[in-house]
Every structure is written in C-alpha cells, then in structure tokens.
C-alpha cells in the first residue's frame, strides 16, 4: 500500500482520531516505511508467540496487539507514543494545511461577524451562531494540532490557538497548550515557535491560575531533559535563562546546586555554563537588593564564588582543553577580581611586594595555573595544546579587562614571554597587540 493510494483526508482523519483519543501522547516520531514493518510486526503477532520478532518496550513487555486496519500501515500508536510513516508525510501535511487554513478563514469571518452581532437578534439565533462558532473553533484546534506536528514552526497555526484560548480562558486549555508544546519539542527541540508559545502561556497563567515556582521547576526540568540529546540548544537554554527572572532567591540557589552535577558531565556545553553564569549574576543582584546589615550577603557570595572557582579549576584539570570551562572561568575571575578590588585596601599600592593583597594572590594563582598548562607532555595530544592556548587567551583576556591589576602583574611576570610566543604561534598576535596597547597606556 503506497502513500499515494490513500485519500489524504482519510489519513488526516485517522491522525486526528488518534490525537483526540489519546491526549497524553508525549512523543512523536517519523518512521521510515522499512522500520515501520518491524513496529507493526510486534502489534500483529499474538501475545502467546515466543518468536523474537518485534520490539520490546522498556519495561520488557511486548506491545498489545491492535486491530489491523489499512491505516496501521502508516500510523503506529502505543503507550502514548505516536509514529507516522514518512511515506505519508507529504499528503498528510497538505491535507492538514488545507483543512487548517480553511477552518481558520471561516473562524475569522465568523468571529468578526459574531462580535458585530446586532442586539436585536433573538436568543435562538444567537445561541445557534455561538454553537457554529464553537464547532469551527474546535475544527481549528483539531487541524492546527495535526498541522503543527508536521510543521512545527507554522506560526499562523500557533497563533490561531492563542486567539481561541485567549477568548475562552479556562485553565485546562492552557495546560493543553503546554502539553502540545512539549510534544512538539520532543522531536523538534529547536522549534522557535514551540518555545515562544510556551512563554506566552506561562505569562498568561502566572500568578492568576498557577504557582510560579511549580511552573519554573517543571520547565527547567524540561530543558534539562531536552538538553541531554540536543547539545547547546540555544532556544532551550534561553528559555531556562528566561525562567530565572521568575525565581525566588532560594530557587536560584537550589538551581545552582541541582544543575551542578549535570554541568560537570557536560563540560563541552557552553550554554549550560552560561546558564550557571546567569544564575550567579541573579544571585548577586538578589544579594545586593537584600543588603543585610550583618554582611551575611557578602559571606554568602564569597563562599559560593570560591566554591565555583575551585570546582571549575578541578574540571579544567580533569577535562583537558575544554573551551567552555575556560570561558566560564573568564567570567568568574572577572567578577571575582572586581569584587576583591572593591574590598581590598591595598589594591592601588604598586610598590609593595604584592603578597599582602588577596588580589595579587589571586593573580599569582592564575598565572601558576597558566604555567602548569603550558607543560605539554611528550605524547602530544591535541587537547594539551588546546589547553595551553585556552589558558593563554584566558590570562590575556583578564589582562585586557583589568589592565591596572592583572595587566601590570602579567607584564612583570616570568610568564610574559611564554604567553606572547604561544599566542603568536597560533596566529593570535592581534589579541596580544590589542592587550599590550591597553596596558602600556598605564
């Protein structure tokens, strides 16, 4: 049975029936016809069959047999998972799009004229036209859902749902929208429209219908799950950063704590470290607002920051040559240095031996770190070379940002020439020149 032989509107009806019958579908996949046969074998084999054919579900059971029908060739539905054969994607998409655009057009016409209804019309007519509008609305919702599974960034379809939900406003409808968004994101985690639809729903329900903390926790978890298979997914992590402004101070600290292990296992994921930076900056902002008289905010900040610096250092030594870790350290050290500079009394003293101030101690430590990274073992793994380069640009970057402290100390250190040569060797002398230009002006 080929895709071409089946009436597209029948395909669409079947898809929509499945979606309507199972509102808890949480995963959609598009399956090649050859693989489809394997899925269906499992369904059509009898439960007593001991043959090895057919996939097993995660809990070790086999899928229950379902009544065989023509459309089973193109759809697979079991345990809240939906599979669609790639053979029918084309006709299915066209049918869904045509049905949606048609329903949406009728909906807009009807709702416009409904709004303008003459007050003199009798009750029966009003009720009748309301029922017709209800019917068309449910058609729009039905067809848009099918369409969005096939074309996740079809903006007009997402918008139509917003229009209808906005008019009706019951809380369960909002939850349905979140569910649809999660479903789309399960196979299209970069879908811009799915993420922005989510934010629209959250903005609508926050405070009014739902507990902010719960929403934030759930969506943060969603990003974490998706991020497992969708590395450095900008839209996903951006969503998680967006949630931070809704977090309480304690939630921020909890997120920092809970996401640490995950970050430690994904050291090449720059986005997850940026997320940590975002949380840390929020924490600083919160502490500044609280501004405790007993100085406990300062202590809290100190402790956390030191912990983060030490933790990143451990990761840097363990995972050699990972850019994301070095960039996170740039951020941490910059903020730390600025904080120390505010606290430290001896900062402007260029004449003392330098061992008295915490700023100088920190700079020395970092220069030592760089030094240790320039020792490239004989086995000459590319990673060690990368480590040397990243540590060099790390030092130089700080020197550029902090010319009067870091810059000055670097100039006087024994690492100065090593650094210059290393950067020159990898074609980064432009960065060197730009930095020394800032430093010599002191």
């Amino acid at each position, binding site marked *: 049975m080929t895709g071409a032989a089946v009436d597209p509107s029948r395909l669409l009806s079947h898809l929509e029936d499945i979606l309507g019958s199972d509102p808890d579908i949480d995963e959609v996949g598009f399956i090649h016809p050859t693989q489809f046969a394997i899925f269906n074998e499992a369904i059509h084999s009898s439960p007593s069959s001991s043959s090895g054919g057919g996939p097993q579900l995660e809990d070790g059971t086999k899928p229950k047999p379902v009544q065989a029908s023509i459309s089973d060739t193109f759809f697979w539905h079991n345990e809240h998972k939906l599979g669609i054969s790639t053979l029918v*994607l*084309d006709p299915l*998409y*066209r049918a869904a*799009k045509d049905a949606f*655009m048609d329903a949406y*057009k009728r909906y807009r016409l009807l709702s416009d004229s409904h709004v303008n209804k003459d007050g003199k019309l009798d009750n029966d007519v009003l009720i009748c036209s309301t029922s017709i509008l209800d019917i068309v609305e449910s058609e729009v919702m039905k067809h848009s859902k099918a369409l969005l599974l*096939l*074309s996740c*960034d*079809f*903006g*007009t379809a997402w*918008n139509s749902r*917003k229009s209808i939900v906005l008019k009706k406003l019951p809380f369960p409808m909002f939850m349905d929208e979140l569910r649809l968004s999660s479903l789309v994101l399960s196979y299209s985690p970069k879908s811009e429209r799915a993420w*922005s639809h989510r*934010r*629209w729903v959250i*903005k609508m329900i926050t405070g009014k219908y739902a507990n902010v903390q719960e929403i934030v926790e759930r969506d943060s978890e969603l990003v974490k799950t998706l991020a497992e298979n969708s590395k*450095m997914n*900008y839209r996903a*992590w*951006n969503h998680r*950063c*967006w949630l*931070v*402004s809704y977090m309480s101070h304690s939630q921020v600290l909890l997120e920092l704590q809970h996401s640490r292990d995950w970050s430690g296992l994904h050291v*090449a*994921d*720059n*986005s997850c470290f*940026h997320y940590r*930076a*975002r949380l840390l*900056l929020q924490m600083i902002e919160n502490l500044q607002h609280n501004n405790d008289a007993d100085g406990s905010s300062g202590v809290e900040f100190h402790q956390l920051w030191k912990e983060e610096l030490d933790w990143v250092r451990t990761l840097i030594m363990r995972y050699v040559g*990972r*850019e*994301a870790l070095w*960039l996170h350290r*740039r*951020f941490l050290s*910059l*903020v730390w240095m600025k904080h120390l500079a505010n606290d430290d009394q001896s900062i402007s003293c260029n004449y003392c031996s330098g061992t008295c101030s915490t700023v100088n101690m920190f700079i020395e430590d970092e220069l030592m770190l760089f030094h240790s990274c320039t020792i490239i073992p004989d086995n000459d793994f590319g990673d060690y070379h990368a480590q040397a380069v990243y540590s060099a*640009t790390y030092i130089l*970057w700080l020197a*550029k*940002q902090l010319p009067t402290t870091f810059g000055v100390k670097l100039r006087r250190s024994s690492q100065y020439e090593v650094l210059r040569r290393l950067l020159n060797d990898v*074609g*980064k002398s*432009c*960065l060197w020149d*730009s930095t020394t230009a*800032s430093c010599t002006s002191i």
Partner: protein
Amino acid sequence: MGELKVEKHVEYILTVEKKKDDFESVVMEHLRLNGAYWGLTTLDILGKLEAVDKEEVVSWIMQCQHESGGFGGNIGHDAHVLYTLSAIQVLALFDKIDVLDVEKVANYIASLQNEDGSFSGDIWGEIDTRFSYIAICSLALLHHLDKINVERAVEYIVSCKNLDGGFGCTPGAESHAGQIFCCVGALAITGSLHHVDKDLLGWWLCERQVKSGGLNGRPEKLPDVCYSWWVLSSLIMIDRVHWIDKGKLVNFILDCQDKQNGGISDRPDDAVDVFHTYFGVAGLSLLEYPGLKAIDPAYALPVDVINRIFIGK
C-alpha cells in the same frame, strides 16, 4: 577548493524557485518570503537578478501583506516582522518600494515597540533583539525611523550586552553570533556603535574561527557557512576584520559548494539549501571575492541598492 561556481549556483536557485510544489519547498512554505530574500539577493550579488520575473515576484509579495500592514511568510499567513523585513528588502532589490503604502507598513512595525524600547515580533509579544534589528533596518529603508523611540530602542539593545562583549536575544541570554549581528547592525544603522566595546567584541568574534578556517556561532560549536556572514559583517562594522584569517575563510566557503549541482551547504559535504547559499555568497562578497557585487554589512543588501535608497538614483 578553487573557484566559485557562479553558473551552477544561479541554476540551483532558479530551480528551487520554480519547484514550489515539491515536498521540501511545501514544508517551508510558511517562510517562503524569507526564502525569496535569500534566493534573490544571491542572484543580485551574482549579477543575475534579471533571470526572474520581477512583476510576478512583486505581485506575489503584495499578496502576502496582511490587513495590519505587516507581511506573512506566504499568502494567507499571519503577519510577523520577520517576513515584513524580507518583503521590504526584496522590493528594494527590484527598486519597487514605491508599490508599498509606506505609512501603513511603518505604522505596523512601530506599533510593535514596547515600553522598554524592545520590539515584539508580532501581536503575540515575543521579544528578541532580532526584532529590534528588523524594526530599525526596515524603518531606515522606509525613511521612517522617526516613528519609533530610537533612543529607547538603543538602550534596550545595550541592556542585552554580556560581560564577554557579545549580545544575546534578551538581557542575560547567551552571546550568539546571529544575535550579535542584529545588535551591532541596529547600533550601526542608528549611529550608536560607540556603545560597543570593539576590542572586547572583536575578541569574542575572532575566537569563532576554527582550525579549518570556518567560523562558528558560539564557542564549542562546529563551523557553519552562515556564520561567515554574521561574524564577518559584525567584525567589519566594528572595524576588526583583520583579526581573522580571511584567506582561510574564503577557502572554507568554497569548500562548502556542491560543484556538480550548485548551491552551498553549512559545511563541506552536507546537503545544500538556499539559506546557506545566500550566506556563503554574501560572505564571499564581504571578503571581496572577485566578480561579486559589494554588499552592505548592516543592511544585508547590495551596496548599489542602498545607495539608490539613501542617495538617490
């Protein structure tokens, strides 16, 4: 390696333009206006814009206009600034901006500015610095920047600057080359580049170049031809393009061509598409590859088109 297969790329784009009933085109139909911009600007840079039927394109574009004044991605689709900019840009290529009711389009865009200076993409309120760039670029091309609060718009963009010197889609978002292009472009158009720490941002941008000579969009990512545009044009606008190895980048882009069938892909040996074909050719133009029309790094349109709009015929 070697040379740019101009004829092949022209053929590829013209084929894609005609094949609009193919499944691949059909599932992209909600953003066909963007596709028109990528395809037609590429043709213009390659000196072959006359290969398309101007009247047909203009007529189709006008059918994409929504009653609000904005444009949808295709006929019957909801309005959004993403497609509105592409509409204006394509009309600019054909010197047909005068078919627009400029007031109406400008008012649509201006209505999307928020209190804090940011811009929403459409009536549904999603905010992103991309939309700030789109609004500013569109209104500049329509000579109607007066309809928005430019100072606030600039303030908002500056609030999206990160400690690494880059910009994200909203305040506190990760720096991303695409977003950086939008922010720097918007600041350039409004004469506000003094807000950018050029050395700091130049540093972030030049670190996008990887061993192969290609550019990535963020740390730890693979190089992609589209960043040849976003990173490169940003570097040019802040006068730091000498911080990357231009020769290596040219070779990377040329390596991404499908020399048999035309078109350019995101990286060597991948499947081609119009999006990457445009960015590859535009990147080469910025790198002054011979035989290509010059392109403006802020407006992303050929320089002669920009001159026509701002200086007159």
